[in-house]
């Protein structure tokens, strides 16, 4: 019986069936389906489906988490083949929660969903200073930086990230997006970041926009 591996992977991600995604991904690779196709039309499409359900108000955070876990498991299986085939991540993201703030669940959701959508994510953790963000930009040369802030008293540290990058001429080479409970579109525009994301799926849309890709 012919198996539509791609559609099955999409469904398994949507249902959060982690080991099934891993099995299907491996079998699909064994059957000769190219890694890039598995990535785009399997894993990423699976996460897109969950993202659509989130926007429709059908999927909530638990559904996103189990889907992202499943997609990331598929990614683990796919990684050697992707590296071998020369398929590159869609973009590289440095992510962290701003200095003074130890919240990480929002940041983690963004990380999982970005990874599930084919982005490489370097997670700096929480309480990340401007200097640490700067260091990461120097070392990792990301395409973008994603900053999370939950508190009104810590979001004020975001401008210093931009200043620090600006002082060494790095600001122009990296896009910056922000997100978190205390942040708004108005604040993002006021401080001069490139985008504000309301949730983890908006973060993916923003990341794609930054990279000039549609999927």
């Amino acid at each position, binding site marked *: 019986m012919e198996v539509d591996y791609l559609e099955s992977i999409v469904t398994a991600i949507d249902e*959060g069936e982690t080991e099934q995604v891993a099995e299907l991904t491996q079998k699909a690779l064994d059957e000769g389906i190219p890694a890039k196709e598995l990535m785009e039309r399997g894993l990423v499409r699976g996460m897109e489906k969950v993202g659509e359900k989130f926007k429709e*108000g*059908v*999927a*909530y*955070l*638990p*559904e996103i*988490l*189990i889907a992202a*876990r499943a997609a990331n498991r598929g990614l683990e299986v796919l990684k050697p083949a992707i590296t071998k085939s020369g398929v590159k991540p869609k973009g590289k993201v440095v992510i962290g929660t701003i200095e*003074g*703030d*130890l*919240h*990480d*669940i*929002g940041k*983690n959701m963004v990380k999982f969903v970005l990874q599930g959508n084919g982005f490489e994510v370097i997670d700096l953790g*929480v*309480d990340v200073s401007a200097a640490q963000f700067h260091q990461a930009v120097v070392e990792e040369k990301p395409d973008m930086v994603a900053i999370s802030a*939950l*508190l*009104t*008293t810590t979001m004020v540290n975001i401008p210093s990230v931009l200043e620090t990058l600006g002082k060494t001429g790095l600001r122009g080479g990296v896009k910056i997006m922000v997100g978190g*409970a*205390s942040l708004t579109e108005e604040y993002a525009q006021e401080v001069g970041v490139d985008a504000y994301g*309301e*949730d983890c799926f908006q973060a993916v849309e923003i990341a794609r926009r930054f990279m000039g890709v549609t999927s």
Partner: protein
Amino acid sequence: MTGRERFLKIARFELPNTFFLSTYNHAMWHKTLERWVEEGAPKEILSSTKARLGYFGFERIGMVHVEASFLTLGKTGGPPFIPPVRPRFELKVLEEDERTRVIIDEGGRKLRQYKDDPQRMPAWLDAPVKNRGDWDEYKKRLDPHHPERWLEPDWGAYAENLSQRDYPLGVDVGSFYGLLREWTGAERLMYLFYDDPELVCDMMAHMEYFSTEIIQRVLKDIQVDFAVFWEDIAWKGGPLISPKMFREFMMPHYKKVTELLHRKGVDIIFVDSDGDISELIPLWVESGVNGMYPLEVAAGMDAVKLRKQYGKQCILWGNIDKRALAKGKEAIKEELDRKTPFLLSQGGYFPGIDHFIPEDVSLENFQFYLDYLREHFAG
């Protein structure tokens, strides 16, 4: 009319155009109070609710002295918070650097906290309940009848004294999500709904038992005026779990608790949840909960809209934007002028700030907020 009588009449929509202003929903972070002391407030406000009551002219409100919900270990009665475990875990410092330390707290959670501000939200590193075995052990510390949970050495005298009170008194009635998150961890709990739903059901069933045992024991001797669930089950984008999941997992337990409260004559039942709770409000109302706070403005909560939508089905408490207090007098006036006249005219509303007051709010601004409220809307 006593404060207690006024509170009850306001909550029951029997007394419009007046308000009851208490320490409830006027909580401050310790750093905020430190700032205010530097700005001229007496230092006693740092450590005494009574001092804050007196200095700011709040009306008295109390909670029954039993550990039935999250506990506040902070100097100002705020965080750190722990679940109501007895016996408590021994506080252990595992490592520290210049700014932070990693501890096992009294609730058994591993976390990193700022040394200069332990009240600040910590980084959660690990939680004690990962599986059923862990839960079977942990729930031994959630015995509703553990003697250390009942804080009054002479319960009879305490109850007798309360019968003469002139202030409203509430009872904490636990939680079916918020506390579970405290011992499983935020992400793990969400996974557990799918990975081990029976464990989630077991934890909720135990919390129903926990709450109903406490309620029965308290209400045998004390007539309370209101009850409070604590959940924090929403974020800016909506509820943390779907309404479908809420209905399936949580609602049956809510109904058991609210039905018991109603039978015992308690008809004012609040739920405390930050975030955008709008999708859950109808479910809470269906479950017998009829009051919500703090109604976080940054999460899109709008008490005026809720009043128009729900009428007298919901008592509303809070919804004054803490960011307006930080901005200044014009912003405060605008915020109060926009909401307060309508909300007070309808009854069933208690003014309050939509979360802990942060340290970017000056004493002057907070005092202005109180003065403006009293001068213009006291009725």
